[in-house]
């Protein structure tokens, strides 16, 4: 790759208003853009920048900001660079435009994000459920949904009574610390 990606990209995105650009390295470029400017940016990237491959759309929940972050990862087979375009949309009502017209694979990712986060994509070919056909709870990937609590509320721990435990209990010992009291990943809080 001899082209200076950053410079080239800077020139390209200069045509879209309000885009911020940061590069981690030559093959990972990050763009932050206003939601309404994203479709134009993607069209530009695809049409003029050879970014024909939509690798993925990722959704990140930021409940404290009241926002969802949508990240569009697009790859250019010619420039050999991955551009991740970030937008933030309000968590409520959680609606955005489909980019299916630009990238067909968007249909899969948008349907997935709709199912898991409840973000509705206008113009997406299908917003039907895909995996959670029997689920009528909240979109489970939202931060407020605590899946482990849900599991604990709906399932029982296996109640084992092996001989060795009966023996130890008869001698005055027995279960001292249950796993759910100590599970470390559960204790470690998020610092953000």
């Amino acid at each position, binding site marked *: 790759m001899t082209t200076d990606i950053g410079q080239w990209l800077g020139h390209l995105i200069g045509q879209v208003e309000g885009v911020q650009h940061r590069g981690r390295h030559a093959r990972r470029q990050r763009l932050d853009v206003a939601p309404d400017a994203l479709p134009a940016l993607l069209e530009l990237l695809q049409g003029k920048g050879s970014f024909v*491959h939509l690798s993925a759309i990722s959704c*990140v929940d930021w409940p404290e900001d009241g926002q969802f972050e949508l990240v569009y990862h697009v790859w250019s087979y010619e420039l050999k660079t*991955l551009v991740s375009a970030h937008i933030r949309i309000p968590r409520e009502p959680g609606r955005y435009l489909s980019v299916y017209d630009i990238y067909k*694979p968007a249909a*899969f990712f948008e349907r997935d994000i709709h199912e898991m986060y409840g973000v509705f994509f206008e113009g997406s070919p299908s917003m039907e459920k*895909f995996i959670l056909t*029997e689920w009528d709870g909240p979109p489970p990937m939202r931060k407020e949904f605590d899946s482990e609590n849900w599991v604990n509320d709906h399932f029982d721990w296996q109640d084992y009574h092996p001989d060795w435990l009966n023996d130890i209990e008869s001698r005055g010992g027995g279960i001292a610390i249950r796993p759910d009291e100590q599970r470390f990943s559960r204790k470690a809080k998020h610092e953000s």
Partner: protein
Amino acid sequence: MRAENYQSRAQPPSHEYELNFGPNHPGIEGNYALKVRLHGDTVIDAKADGGYLHRGFEKLMEQRLWIQNIALVPRICVPDPAPMELAYSMAVETLCGLEVPARAQWLRVLQMELSRVAAHLFTFGGHAATTGMYSTMFWGVADRDLILDLFEELTGGRVYHIYNLPGGVRRDVPDGFLDRVSATLDYLESRLADYDNLFFTNQVFITRARGIGPMSQQQALELGVTGPNLRATGLAFDVRRDDPYLVYDQIEFDIPTETAGDAWARTLVRRAELKESIRILRQVVARLPGIPGPIRAPIPNPLAWNVPAGEYYSRVESSKGELAWYVVSTGGAKPWRTHIRGPSAMHAVQVLETLVQGCRLEDVAQIMFSLDACPPEVDR
């Protein structure tokens, strides 16, 4: 999946009917299936239906310490679990600024390519079985077991290696291991002629596979196809070459392509890739003894490991195509968000739905296996 979910998608005219193709693991409730609408034995529409084979990995990962997720991610794809560990580790390493020692990188290549060989053997078998050639499947599974023996020795696990940690790998090769790798590679190479006779140059298979599920390069690019399926349309794209990681830039290998873009071409690409992987593995065997340790960068106590805030999109070339993890950290002890871009999720849904349009019912399974789609990865 419960009975009430097997409702037909529309009220079809009487000469059309709908068939639930799958779930393909009959013992597991709620697996991936394909709802196929047929007119006679011609497919006129198909919808992929995700299941619960493995559930909620991404959610689980947000609740686990960074290092604990290493034990989780290989389970996303049984046939080719190794790249899952690798891509996740690479993302964490980038966020932490960890320098992975050279020997660890070579050991990772060893693991990746062994996994690719095992996965391709599995796929040949599966593909052959969809055309009724079960001997190839038996062979494929049996020969894959030899790789699993090697994994057992190297990593302690036959399928779920849990061999990578962010920073490197957990163990070095045991004594004499590289000799046993060489012996297995010799054996597999010698077997290739057998496979050719039984399968690849079997006129019955050629006739069954040619022209089935064809895809143009243009179509493949539009649908986001990657990996061998994309290379079977003539585009020599491979993450190992074009978005390089580990030490693939120090290794000689070719990127095989075909142009027909059909089921036959896809399988031929995999056959050629098997040979390329063996070529890569021979280079690893030759060079690894000269690469000094350590095999892991120093990492913090797993119970007190905050990964600096940031995000990274790490990509690797799995046997099935482009595999990526988008990992977001807020500086905490657990990931804030992990998103997997699995190749099968693309191939088994939109691509499969498209390619089976107009094909005959008996070819649906073959098209699915020729795309090498992995249901757990769709359900993830």
